[in-house]
C-alpha cells in the first residue's frame, strides 16, 4: 500500500470530520465505524464528500460505500484503483 497516500487519507479524514486525534493515531486497518474509530452514520456524508473533494473518488451507492468505507486501507485501494482507470494525459 502507498504509505504516502495512506497518510494523506488519514489527514483528510481527521480534517473533514474534525476528529479530536492526530492522523498518525489512525491505524491502517482499524474499522472506521462502530467499534474502532467510533464514526457514525452522520459522518458518512461528510466522509464521502471529503474523499471526493480531496482525491476525486466518487462513492455513488451504498453498496460501494459499505465496501470502501471500512478502513484507511480500503479507501486507499479505491483511490489507487480509480487512478489506474484514469487515461494517461498526453504530453
Amino acid at each position: 500500500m502507498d504509505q504516502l497516500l495512506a497518510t494523506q487519507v488519514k489527514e483528510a479524514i481527521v480534517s473533514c470530520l474534525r476528529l479530536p486525534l492526530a492522523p498518525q493515531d489512525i491505524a491502517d486497518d482499524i474499522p472506521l465505524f462502530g467499534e474502532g474509530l467510533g464514526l457514525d452514520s452522520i459522518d458518512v456524508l461528510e466522509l464521502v464528500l471529503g474523499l471526493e473533494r480531496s482525491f476525486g473518488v466518487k462513492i455513488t451507492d451504498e453498496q460501494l460505500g459499505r465496501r470502501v468505507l471500512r478502513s484507511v486501507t480500503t479507501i486507499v485501494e479505491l483511490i489507487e484503483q480509480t487512478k489506474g482507470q484514469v487515461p494517461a494525459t498526453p504530453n
Partner: protein
Amino acid sequence: MRDNVVVTGAGCVSSLGIGAETFVDRLLAGDTGIRPVTTFSTDRCRSHTAALLRDFDPGRFLDPMKLRRVDEGGRLALAACRLAIDDACLPTRTDEVGVVLGTATSGLHSTVAHLHKLATEGPTAVSAMGFSNTIGNAAASLCSIEFGLRGPNVTFGQKQASALAAIAFATSGLRQGRASAFVCGGVDDIEERFFRVHDRLRVLSPTDGCQEASRPFDLRRNGIVLGTGGHLVVLETAASAARRGVAAYGEVLGVGCGGSACGLSAWPTEPSGIVRVMRAALADAGVTPSDINVAFAAANSTPTLDRVEALALAEVFGPGGVPVVSLKGALGEFGASGGAALTAALVGLGRGTLPPTLGCEQPDPACPVDVSRCARRSRGHLALINGTADGGAQFCLVVRAASVPRVERRA
C-alpha cells in the same frame, strides 16, 4: 387552580465563572466579567472590551467526539443545561421535561463559517453538519438530544430579552400542564462579525469617544458592552418538586409580556409599554408594587433605555420607591441576561443580599430611581425582573426567593 412554578436548579456558564454559586459569589463581591477582548482582533474597532467566558472548558461537559459537531452556542447550552439538571437532580430521558431556550446569536458562528467556506471554496467545501448548526434552534435541539428531554422544545429570538421570553413561556407552559419541568433561560456567545457590526453601527460604548464601559443609569453612559454566557434554570411545578423531594431556590409568581411598538432596532422612547408589562406581571403575581424588594432592570448603559426604564420604574413604584439593580455593568448586554438576573435574584435574595450595579458612579438625575450601587442587605425576598429588547419587546417576571437558602436546607 393553577400549580405554582418553582426554580429547582440553576446552571451558569458565565463571564464570572462556572456554576450558579460561583456566579453569584463573584457578582455579590463586585467582580466584573468585562475585560479586553482576546478571542479575536478588535483592530480598527472603536470598542475593545466585552464580557468574556471565564474558566469554561467544554471538554468537561461533553465527549470530544460529540464536541466536534457542536458550535459555540451549542456548547454553552449543553454545559449550562448539564449544570442546571445536576443542580436540580432532575431525571432525564423523559417526555415530561422540555427545553425553552432564548438566544440572540445561537447559530451565528456556524453561519459565518458556512458562508465563508461557500464564498471562498464553493458549495462542495461546505460541511453538512456545519449547516445544521447554523439553524437558530440547534442549541435547544442539542440539549433535547443529549439529555433525552422529549417535552416541548422551543427557541426564542427576542434579542436582549430572549432568556426572559423563554422563562415567561416556560412558566405559562407549566401552568397549562404542558410538562412537569422545563430547562429554560438563555445562551449567547460573541462572534467577531457580530461585534464588528455593532461597533460600526455605534451601538457599543464608546459611542462618543469617551471612555469605554458599561454604566447603567450613570450620567456618562455611552452605549452597551456585549456579554457572553449560558444561564439556564430548571423551572418545575411545585407538585413535581414536592414529589421528587427537592428544595427550590424560589418561585416565579407572575409574568408579563407586551411591546412598545417602537422602531425595529430602537429602544422605547416613552415608558408606557414597560409600565404596562410590569403592572401585568405584578397583577399576575397577586402582589402590589410596595411588596417588591428589588427591581432588576434591563438598563444597559444606553442613553435612551436607561432613562425610559427609570421613568417607568418611577411611575410604578414611585420615584426611588424600590432599590434598582442592573447586572449589565458587570455582565454586559446579551440575550441570556434575563436568566442571569433570575439566578442572581433567587440565590442573592436567598442570602439576603442585593448585587451591586457596577459602573454607576455618577447617577443620572434624569433617571429617578434608587440605584443599588453597592451590594447591600435586602429587606425581603420579592424581586421584579425586566427584560427589554431593542424593537420594543418587553417581558417581566415577579419572583420570590426561598426564605431559607437552599444550600442550608439541603444540609
